[in-house]
């Protein structure tokens, strides 16, 4: 873990104030930003832990808690709301058997809400990890979840 963090930080040496970029990359490699990870980032960047934690906990895409292998994010913004995102959410909750902010027992999926994904033309939409899916129906949801 320490080596991974060190290596990432070295890659940003020439950059001014790269904390957020570093946290992104560290999360990509290590899954989430645990207290231990944040302490190491703070140590190597010579920043107070309070600041590193403050930043990590401020942004939605940075996770300070362990999540499932795949994160399902349901868009809850108005254009998706109008097109029935609440039905999508209900469907997902029952399909996965979890509530918002929870992770399935097999650690495969976490369910979260997100703001507009910018694909309103195909609302309602969800994002699974980096992949966006639109024009959702109950059947489509099932097929999407099967892929993971």
């Amino acid at each position, binding site marked *: 873990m320490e080596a991974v963090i060190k290596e990432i930080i070295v890659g940003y040496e020439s*950059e*001014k*104030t*790269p*904390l*957020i*970029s570093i*946290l*992104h990359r560290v999360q990509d490699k290590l899954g989430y930003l645990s207290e231990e990870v944040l302490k190491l980032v703070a140590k190597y960047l010579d920043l107070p832990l309070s*600041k590193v934690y*403050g*930043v990590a906990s*401020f*942004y*939605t*895409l*940075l996770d300070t808690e362990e999540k499932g292998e795949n994160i399902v994010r349901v868009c*809850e*913004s*108005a*254009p998706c*709301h*109008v*097109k029935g995102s609440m039905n999508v959410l209900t469907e997902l909750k029952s399909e996965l058997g979890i509530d918002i902010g929870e992770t399935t027992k097999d650690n495969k999926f976490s369910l979260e809400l*997100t*703001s*507009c*994904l*910018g*694909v*309103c*033309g*195909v*609302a309602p939409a969800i*994002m699974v990890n*980096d992949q966006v899916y639109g024009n959702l129906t109950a059947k489509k949801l099932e097929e999407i979840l099967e892929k993971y």
Partner: protein
Amino acid sequence: MAFYRGHILVCTGQECKQKGGKEVERILVKELKRFGLNDEIKVISTDCLGACEAGPLMVIYPEGVYYGGVQIEDVREIVEEHLLKGRRVNRLLYEMDESEENVTAHHKKDIFSDEMRIVLRNCGLIDPEDIKDYIGRDGYRALGIALTRLTPKEVITMIEDSGLRGRGGAGFPAGLKWKFTHQADGDEKYVVANADEGEPGTSKDRLIMEGDPHTLLESMAIAGYAVGADTGYIYVRGEYQLAVSRLKKAIEQAEELGVLGKNLFDSDFDFEIKIREGAGAYVCGEETALLRSIEGERGEPQIKPPYPPNEGLWGQPTLINNVETLANIPVIIQKGADWFSKIGIENCTGTKVFTLSGDVMNEGLVEVPMGTTLREIIEGFGGGMADGREFKVAQTGGTSGGCIPKELLDTPMDYDSLAEVGSALGSGALLIMDESHCIVDIAKCFMHFFEHESCGKCTPCREGNTRMYEMLDRISKGESNLKDLDKLRDLANVMSKTALCGLGQAAPTSIYSTLDYFKDEYLAHITAKVCITGDCQELVTQREEGERKGETA
């Protein structure tokens, strides 16, 4: 860099593909190789050319000759006769009307004739991953003009004269911002592109970055020259991964060709561009919060003044513009301020890209001159309401904008006209809703968004949004009384007057407008405990229970 004497566009749109367009393209590439023409003539597979009945279709440039119904066995004849010997193959000629309609038929969305593409001029027409395609459409020419023929002051005067206003939402005159940054003293200056497109219902910046990334790079370099900056940052939403990868590729190609980097166009002007990814915070679209985020801090807005042109990134003078604002710059430089200022309306020149979503037949992005009315967009580009239902309300400008009822459909869409009716042009989001949606439920959805996205730094926004959401929730459940309506308005006043940044100030816009235009619906929820659309589940259940009780009594 390779130069081609000719280009062949082969249509591989849906219809042509089904008729064998893809196969024709494959054979064409093979035949060109066989005749050794592959270094002279480039084959480009394109999207629909608009004449689907004549597919598979191909066009040979620079002659502009169309061949229709091309089968694989015709390909060799076209190559031998037309390309090698210069004789047209008459039997395959397809007559395209030279009327303007067909000239613009490359656009997929030619169903809407009022569209005018300045910002989106290249989107869908070029390969965004190939700088040569961009250069082929006069890309980087404006930067060349600026660097070789104009002084920074002349560039700024041009932008001022064009009347261009910021497209991020506030509508501040772009030229003035440039001038302030130019005049400010600093050891170093920066240009920042605000690509943190977080306003719900907006995807214009994503389309520009994914479809035409070099436009943004070129514009930033011109801005850098004008204000005296040699470094630019693009702050992109973390969710926009495709845009990030295209921008990275574009920067690499531009540096390789020398249109970014040192001594651009043999001048002593250097410019480099870096990308910073956001991490999911709507408030970072606010300029001071965005700058804090680049500085590696929590994205919390700062008190203004000082404004970024005087004290921005790392305390240095910083020009910060929205992606759409910047995308106008190369065209203004090439065609002139006078040309640009004649588009749109007097105090609001140029075009605006709208993201149309909701209950219309055709959703998507459309670019029209400022001042086009909402009705024209819904009926023209949008193709009318979906499923034959009635229009009820439109929210313009995204979640921080206001709601417009049917009576105001003919309001011109520009900053001032929309502000007059209590809404906003904002980012150009247009959410169209039909009669099946409940105003209270929608307003609740808006406030839920702000409750989540408020950064928590100032009290009016942090507490105000939460309390407003709670009141709306009570109204939607039939647990409210008439006093809540006054409280809603009071709280809205406090927030719009005292919140630290635009987020908190604009959050109640939809509350004002729905209270003004749809008060009856609020009253129905509060006094009669009725939600006519059935969106407010609790009220419906209550009524059903009441009816059941009535039946048994």
